[in-house]
């Protein structure tokens, strides 16, 4: 049972013990005044004094405490229905009991509340039919007094608990929203990075033929300085000019796609790793990947742009996961380590996949290099650009225990405090 479910069970346990004890007092006063059978007394004692503890242990022992707790709450309501009938519908305690057993279910959803109320109505009707209870809805003064604690204290208890669980829900919602925001930022960086790398790659690829075109046109003119007809001469010089203009357009596209200003701050890379793993948790579990973290506390914080380094981690971890998808790979282990070395923080990401082909290694970080059937070949190139923009470097090599090892180094925050 995880921490949050245990906390929930404890909360319900306290509320139930408290509520049923108050309810016990109220119902007992009616039983005492009107005279009740031994069976009714026995049932009341069992439910009011023993049941809360039984319910708690049931929930704790269950594999699915949340579900067990819901079942317990329905039992509460069903028992409440029996007591309302056994009290011959004495007005005040009956209303209080029904109110109490409805209030503590509001937080669980309206459909659940309806189900609990239905259970209460059914047990109440059956009990009334079996005992042939004569309706005596009037309430005497002593019963009223005995019911006051239930009337006053219980709503406060419910309000307190639901306020707390509401706050928990809000915090959870906020955490989910933050994750969504991070995801969006990472996607944006990935898009901008892809655009920038594509532009850079295109610039490199296009500028080669453009250079050749310009040179060829000029060579013809140089070889025949006077022998060419004037219109041919003019066409050639236009070819030369326009190839340079095309180069200028490519250059401008590249400048446009260049990244914006980075925001550097002192961050522990371990924290970034945890945030990124939370994002990829689902995929990692789906891929059957075991994650091993070697992130010592002694590693100093790094001076980096949070989102950019997160993007680098996402890319490298995704690559590691994709390297371990082959069914033949028995052990799928992702190892992320961090250590400090002369002014840098070094982060390594290793997998137990097929490793990197040495022939590919030299061009590994170049744009449009890919070994994936549907890859654009920009992931590692983007990683390199982002890490270099943060004043670091990336590298790769074989992992001593098989598979591939990628690493990047980024500057750490200087040890001495600065003013």
């Amino acid at each position, binding site marked *: 049972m995880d921490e949050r479910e245990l906390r929930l069970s404890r909360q319900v346990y306290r509320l139930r013990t408290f509520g049923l004890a108050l309810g016990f007092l109220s119902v007992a006063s009616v039983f005492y005044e009107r005279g009740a059978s031994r069976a009714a007394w026995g049932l009341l004692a069992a439910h009011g004094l023993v049941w809360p503890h039984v319910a708690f242990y049931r929930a704790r022992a269950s594999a699915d405490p949340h579900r067990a707790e819901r079942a317990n709450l329905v039992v509460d309501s069903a028992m409440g229905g029996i007591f309302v009938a056994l009290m011959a519908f004495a007005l005040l305690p009956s209303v209080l009991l029904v109110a109490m057993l409805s209030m503590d279910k509001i937080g669980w959803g309206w459909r659940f509340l309806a189900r609990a109320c239905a259970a209460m109505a059914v047990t109440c009707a059956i009990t009334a039919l079996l005992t042939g209870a004569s309706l005596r809805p009037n309430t005497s003064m002593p019963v009223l007094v005995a019911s006051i604690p239930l009337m006053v204290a219980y709503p406060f208890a419910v309000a307190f608990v639901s306020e707390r669980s509401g706050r928990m829900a809000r915090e959870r919602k906020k955490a989910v929203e933050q994750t969504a925001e991070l995801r969006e930022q990472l996607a944006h960086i990935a898009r901008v990075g892809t655009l920038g790398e594509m532009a850079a790659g295109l610039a490199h690829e296009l500028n080669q033929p453009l*250079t050749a075109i310009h040179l060829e046109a000029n060579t013809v003119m140089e070889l025949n300085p006077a022998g060419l007809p004037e219109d041919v001469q003019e066409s050639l010089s236009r070819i030369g000019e326009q190839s340079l203009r095309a180069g200028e357009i490519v250059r401008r596209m590249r400048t446009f796609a260049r990244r914006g200003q980075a925001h550097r701050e002192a961050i522990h890379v371990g924290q970034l790793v945890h945030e990124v793993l939370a994002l990829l948790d689902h995929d990692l579990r789906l891929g059957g990947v075991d994650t091993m973290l070697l992130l010592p506390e002694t590693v100093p914080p790094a001076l980096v742009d949070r989102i950019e380094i997160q993007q680098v981690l996402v890319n490298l971890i995704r690559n590691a996961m994709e390297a371990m998808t082959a069914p033949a790979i028995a052990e799928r282990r992702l190892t992320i380590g961090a250590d400090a070395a002369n002014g840098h923080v070094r982060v390594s990401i290793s997998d137990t996949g097929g490793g990197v082909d040495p022939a590919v290694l030299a061009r590994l970080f170049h744009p449009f290099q890919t070994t994936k059937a549907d890859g654009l070949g920009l992931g590692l190139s983007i990683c390199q650009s982002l890490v270099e923009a943060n004043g670091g470097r990336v590298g790769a090599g074989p992992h001593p225990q098989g598979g591939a090892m990628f690493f990047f180094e980024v500057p750490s925050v200087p040890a001495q405090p600065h003013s």
Partner: protein
Amino acid sequence: MNPNPNPPVFVIDDEEPVRVSLAKLLRAIGFPSRTFGSAMAFLASDALGEDACLLLDLRMPGMSGIDLIEELARRQMDVPTIVMTGHTDMKSVQRLEAFPLIGFLEKPFSVTQLKELLDLWRSVA
């Protein structure tokens, strides 16, 4: 060593079309040339140590243009060099700052720019 009255230009570029076009243009404007497809091919050839000017592409697979410049500096060979690049990144520029270059050409460069740099080399040599 006999100073060559018309020293050649060594074109080192992994892009075959650029290499061929450059050689043709250089011949047309009166510069003898030799071409190499990679920095390694140049280092392995007998051209190494000749009195010449390098027209060197920066971005090449395996040994890059900067790697070659650093290697030549390590061997204490002072070879006049014009650098060409498909696209300029700040990191390469920073690494190049340590070396005396004749000039820097960003592809696609105009023949006029190339001629200016070659004339500069000739005038110094």
